[in-house]
């Protein structure tokens, strides 16, 4: 009888301990694509519209993710994808959040291979 009363007294504590024991969490991070060298100012300041050639862009940033052949000339498209996630298992309630971000750079050339325009994405992924 005494032990049952004692159990009743500590039941909330036992239940709370059980709840705490079942907590687990995780994070995930993954990058895919080319190295986003266009975030280095020393490289970007070498780019000059109407002067820089395709070869110079490749030397600065490496091979592009995609080359698109337009009628007016080529487009070099650089892409870095980052996936970040976190989750928590709380037994009664679980959640998982994932975010996919892209860091992009794009370079337009004329038919002679001279840079006509370029642009960088607003998103900036930190290099690892």
């Amino acid at each position, binding site marked *: 009888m005494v032990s049952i009363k004692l159990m*009743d007294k500590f*039941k*909330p504590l036992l*239940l709370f301990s059980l709840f705490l024991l*079942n907590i*687990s969490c995780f994070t995930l991070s993954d990058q*895919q*694509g080319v190295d986003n060298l266009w975030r280095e100012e020393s490289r970007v300041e070498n780019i000059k519209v109407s002067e820089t050639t395709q070869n110079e862009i490749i030397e600065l940033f490496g091979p592009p*993710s*995609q080359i*698109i*052949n*337009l*009628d*007016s000339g080529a*487009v070099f*498209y650089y*892409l870095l*994808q980052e996936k970040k996630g976190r*989750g928590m*298992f709380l*037994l*009664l*309630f*679980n*959640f*998982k*959040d*994932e*975010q*996919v*971000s*892209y860091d*992009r*750079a*794009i370079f*337009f050339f004329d038919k002679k291979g001279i840079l006509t*325009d*370029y*642009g*960088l*994405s*607003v*998103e900036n992924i930190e290099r690892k």
Partner: protein
Amino acid sequence: MRENSSPISWPRILLLLLIIGLCSCTAISKKIDAERTLDEHSFILSETHYRDVIDKIGPPSKLSKYNDGLVFLYESIDIKERQLGLNFNYNIFRWLKFSYARGVAERETLLLIFDRDGYLVAKNYKEFKENLGSGQAVSFLVSIESLVDSSSLEEGPASLTWGSSLLKPLPETLNYPQNLGTGESGIEQLGVPDSVGQHTLELAD
């Protein structure tokens, strides 16, 4: 008699709930390219050049040549899935949960078409919700799995998957040069069914 009847206390109610059915609800969220703000109003037909667009909102999610000019497609997706889970604290069922899930995708799409000189000739911005349907499953209690199929909205850029694309079924592999993700043959939004349009060449179900 009344004095002998046990009063209902909150630990007992809690215990009863644990025995009858332990809820194991889950919220899954996935944001794809959702950091930038898309807006068509700041772009004016026949005046805005593609360089102005890139300066303002950065390179597009997809681009392709289009007649003599080019086309930009910006996409942003926020997938939300809510799961209701039930667990019975009895025998082997205590290690399993019975889940029901519903999913919805909040999407933003901005399409911009430029002429051969690079000036805007057509534009459209759309913000809409897409019902991803529902799913049910019996799974291990300590697991977080998506039960709603949103894979068609989560396809990565073609440039990151071209290698694995060579291992796809033969009709799909043979159709790759005309693929709408390469930038040479047009563009398509994420989530387009495989049994329509250009994809019919892939003989999908």
